[in-house]
């Protein structure tokens, strides 16, 4: 079997701006922190999903990028059910790991919380997206030193060729002390842009 994947849609979030398929969806004051920005996107998009505010920062970033991307698509619930999700970043869940570590550093100031601990895994945000959209396909979270378009392409193609998923939601979702950025795209036989390392890289750097 030889399935050809294309890039059907993409969405990127950084510096207070959300761009989806080349179109600016949200643009805010870049000076504000991520949490304020996330709140503004939530309001701007008129979401009604209060669970969003319980999420940690990485999950919020993953969730909001996927939410906007999937809204811009025509994708049936059957297609969503079979969708694979392949995400990656550099810092895994260290952003929340540090927060949890601070809560256990001293006996005098010891306040570990299960609500924080549960987010100390990078794949939890992916789980949040799956819950929201009833996605029950293949899942994998990878960690690389830098955005790795070649690997995303290779692994998404392997899933398609091995008959594990007709479509793959791929990308990068990174948050750390230094800042945040995310880029998700849908690899699907339906798209028009070629699913090549160059195109993935171009879309990632353009936005």
């Amino acid at each position, binding site marked *: 079997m030889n399935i050809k994947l294309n890039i059907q849609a993409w969405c990127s979030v950084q510096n207070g701006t959300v761009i989806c398929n080349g179109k600016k969806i949200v643009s805010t004051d870049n000076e504000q922190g991520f949490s304020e920005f996330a709140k503004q996107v939530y309001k701007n998009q008129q979401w009604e999903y209060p669970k969003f505010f319980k999420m940690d920062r990485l999950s919020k970033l993953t969730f909001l990028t996927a939410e906007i991307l999937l809204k811009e698509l025509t994708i049936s619930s059957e297609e969503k059910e079979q969708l694979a999700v392949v995400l990656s970043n550099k810092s895994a869940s260290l952003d929340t790991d540090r927060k949890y570590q601070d809560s256990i*550093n001293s006996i005098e100031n010891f306040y570990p919380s299960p609500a924080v601990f549960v987010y100390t895994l990078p794949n939890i945000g992916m789980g949040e997206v799956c819950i929201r959209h009833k996605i029950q396909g293949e899942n994998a979270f990878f960690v690389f030193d830098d955005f790795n378009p070649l690997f995303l392409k290779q692994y998404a193609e392997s899933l398609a060729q091995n008959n594990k998923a007709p479509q793959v939601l791929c990308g990068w979702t990174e948050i750390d002390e230094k800042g945040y950025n995310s880029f998700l795209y849908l690899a699907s036989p339906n798209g028009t842009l070629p699913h090549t390392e160059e195109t993935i890289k171009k879309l990632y750097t353009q936005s």
Partner: protein
Amino acid sequence: MENPIYIQEPSLITPLGFSVSENVSAIEKEQSGIHEQHRTDILDTPFYAAMIASEKIDATFEKLGDPSKYLKLEKMMLLSVAETLEKSKLHISEKTALIIATTKGSIDALDPDNSFSEERAYLPVLGNKIQSFFGFKQEPIVVSNACVSGILAIAIAKRLIQNNVYENAVVVAGDLVSKFTVTGFNTFQALSNGPCKPYSKYRNGISIGEAAASVVISSEKNKTTAIEVVGDGSCNDANHISGPSRTGEGLLKSVQSAMQEAVISSKDIDLISAHGTATIYNDEMEAIAFNRANLQKVPLHSLKGYYGHTLGASALVEAIIGFEAMNQNKLFTSLGYDESGISEPLNIIQKVEKKTINTFLKTASGFGGSNAAVLFKKVAFEH
């Protein structure tokens, strides 16, 4: 299958020993690695966990390098990979992948009492340590997908090799017992007050453990009998981030995906090594999923009673014991089980027994709604 993929030269670094044979011999004698730990640097009260003495790791590590230069998990993973590479005599080429499975990596580097820099907690830094130590040519692929990471890494290696991205891969999995994870599971009130008892009526939570494990995955076979990876699947529950699905949906889908690919029906499976963490929710979810898959009569064990839950390493450690069960045609006891604490029947192994094992299913489930299943088959070749 068009591109068969094989397992070669497993290695284990666990509280039960630093070789596969030591591990298997302890399991055969039903010896657990879980003990009461008095480690106030981790938790102010005693707790049950399966831990490896740092002194033992350091003494063994001397043959590879200076133990003071590496964190505990780095040393465990380096020791494990070194043994797998030595036994397999693998030539590391441009087409050799290094796949690392871990949930928390060297999370102990975040602890202010730890003398190593915080940078070492970054998973790519852990990856680079292993890569440069052995001279892997490609950037390491780190899989961090909660407690299914270890078995998912095998599926990933298989898929990439079948699609000619790589010719072979070294898969290494590892996780630590740390203040971070012990206090975390403790806040969930998930820690057992004795060695954990998967599927038992008398269970009361998990025990944590630490381990490292590695294998080579390759399209080449180097023996007259080999273990082939015949099917895989890793599906999300889409239900809850920290609790498994009540219907076992994601696990069922993962098992079905693996069986469909392998063209195997439930009656062909000889052994299941399940996740069996000994929490009510997990054990019950598995019982439901395996019944829905019509696997309730297949001999099944959880090895958490020996190793505790070694998180990202667990499924690879347990798969390796499964390979030995296949090699020796032996069922190993599900330690800690006595009376059933699940609502649907499972054929839980209660004593060591001889049985021909040709087909083996390994499953795992974890936070984030993750599940994974991989099927292995014993194959014999003519010389």
